[in-house]
């Protein structure tokens, strides 16, 4: 930033974006730590190193940082080539451009070949707000989940992301990490998250009336919604299904046998993502439990600031609580916070 620019301090956003995104800071710092520790990690990005914070990785490991410019498909295929030499590339760009624009490169060059590429789709769901549908990704879980050999992970917060990225070091085959815009509030302390394992859901509680199975950015507001419903004497539990594939079907079965109703919550179309995966597991298990799939109901997001969109699409705590209350046939709780991410 030039001293001579006649700007008000704080209006120059590029460098400060990451200051508001602790989850993205954690991604960059965890990968840089892993590289320090000798892991074969390299980072690839497509002209978004400030948006995803991986500039912090570049500063610590410039030799392990590859800038591909605005050519995401080339980046994905190149990362697959890198992985054949034993490197573990982390490929990061907006989820819409990664999982949708590059779907065929991911399928053919990464998943089919079984390469240990770690795809990081950030700013997933509707978290890019008024950027609109071109920048929203409410199909990425469905797209990546349908690829044979692909593991799909949506960590709830920074500590979960750090733990699951570390767990990826021993994980065979490719992974799609789905993260939001990086401002997701903490669900876990680093110590709580340290034991997280790919494919094993975190059961916060099972509820007699309802268990909410949530993933990624929907875990924190689901926990808040459960607390609000509990204040109305409802027994509501939450499972953090951070790994959407392979799905922890045993956790789903435990919830199905404990709870009168189940509900999935995801910042994603209700078709094909977490809701679809849980519905498949329940049906195959023959579990006679009603399921509400909550998320984007086969629709595109509106234009609006992210927090307004979450409220509109009922993906904040109040909206999740209201949807749950309708499902349970009770009055919506009045004390659920509408405020998911601050302003």
């Amino acid at each position, binding site marked *: 930033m030039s001293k001579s620019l006649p700007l008000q301090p704080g209006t120059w956003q590029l460098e400060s974006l990451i200051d508001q995104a602790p989850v993205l800071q954690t991604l960059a710092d965890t990968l840089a730590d892993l590289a320090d520790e000798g892991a074969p990690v390299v980072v690839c990005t497509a002209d978004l190193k400030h948006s995803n914070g991986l500039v912090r990785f570049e500063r610590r490991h410039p030799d392990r940082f590859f800038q591909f*410019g605005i050519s995401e498909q080339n980046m994905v*295929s*190149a990362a697959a080539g890198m992985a*054949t030499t034993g490197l573990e590339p982390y490929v990061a760009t907006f989820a819409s451009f990664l999982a949708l624009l590059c779907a065929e490169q991911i399928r053919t060059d990464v998943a089919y070949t079984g390469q240990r590429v770690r795809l990081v789709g950030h700013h997933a769901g509707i978290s890019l707000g008024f950027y609109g549908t071109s920048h929203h990704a409410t199909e990425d879980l469905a797209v990546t989940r349908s690829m044979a050999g692909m593991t799909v992970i949506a960590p709830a917060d920074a500590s979960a992301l750090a733990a699951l990225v570390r767990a990826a070091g021993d994980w065979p085959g490719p992974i799609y990490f789905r993260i939001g815009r990086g401002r997701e509030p903490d669900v876990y302390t680093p110590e709580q998250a340290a034991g997280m394992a790919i494919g094993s859901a975190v059961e916060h509680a099972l509820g007699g009336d309802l268990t909410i199975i949530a993933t990624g950015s929907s875990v924190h507001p689901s926990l808040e919604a459960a607390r609000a419903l509990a204040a109305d004497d409802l027994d509501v539990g939450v499972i953090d299904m951070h790994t959407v594939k392979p799905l922890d079907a045993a956790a789903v079965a435990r919830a199905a046998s404990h709870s009168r109703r189940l509900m999935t919550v995801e910042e994603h179309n209700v078709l094909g993502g977490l809701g679809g995966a849980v519905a498949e597991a329940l049906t195959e298990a023959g579990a006679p439990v009603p399921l509400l799939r909550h998320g984007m109901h086969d629709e595109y997001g509106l234009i609006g600031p992210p927090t307004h969109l979450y409220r509109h699409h009922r993906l904040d705590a109040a909206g999740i609580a209201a949807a749950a209350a309708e499902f349970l046939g009770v009055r919506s709780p009045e004390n659920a916070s509408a405020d998911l991410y601050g302003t």
Partner: protein
Amino acid sequence: MSDRPVDVQALRDKALFLREETVRLIGIAKTGHFASSFSCAEILAVLYGDTLRLRRGQPDWPERDRFLLGKGHAAVALYPLLAGLDFFPSDELDSYTRLGSPFGDHPDMRRIPGIDFSSGSLGHALSAGVGMALAARLQPHQYGVYVLLGDGELHEGQVWEAAMAASHHGAANLVAIVDRNEYCLDGRVEDVVAIEPLADKWSAFGWSAHEVDGHDVEALASTFRGLTEMRRDGPAVVIAHTVKGKGVGFMEREPGWHLGYLDPQDEQLVLTELRGQG
């Protein structure tokens, strides 16, 4: 290396062998890409017979040169070369395209020793090659990366994304070869969507561009040798001018033979014609 004379006859014999094997294997499948394989037979024969640093019986040798077949539909002409390097027993080729075989119309790196990258979807291989070339910077050993592209494949935009990235990052260990056989499926490439002036395009993308007769094994070998020995600061492309269907009169420059099948009687005519050129 350069002092060693090019064994022209051995390379010609290898190209003939590839064409014979292509005929034999497509006879098993009852359909296949004759013409696309014939146009690059000399290119493959020279790469595997003279250019690439490989170790017999060691398909995963870390220091090996990498080869990626962008035009994956010519894989039928590549498989016999890999068998010839003892990467797998050559009689396994007899399963070509049969249920459960490793050997399909397009090459699969997970199932075939010596295939450095799977292909089939045009436009991906140069990107994967760029990744391998850049990855060499973090490896204790150096290697070259060679990517064979079809000229129709150059319609794919991803090729040019990769071309930009390769020159920007100074991938001097990367060589692309264009099998310029002038035909894609729907006709002449220049009629379908023109790609000329091709050498100028690559040059404009920051590559050193070289042109060669793609059926002249001596010219191909010396061109590739020159590139491996030249100290470059960026990637190089060899535009190999070829004839689609080369070696079989009725297939040459006939788009209908992009995909086809030979009756056993016709197969004998083709083999006789091919062997007459050896």
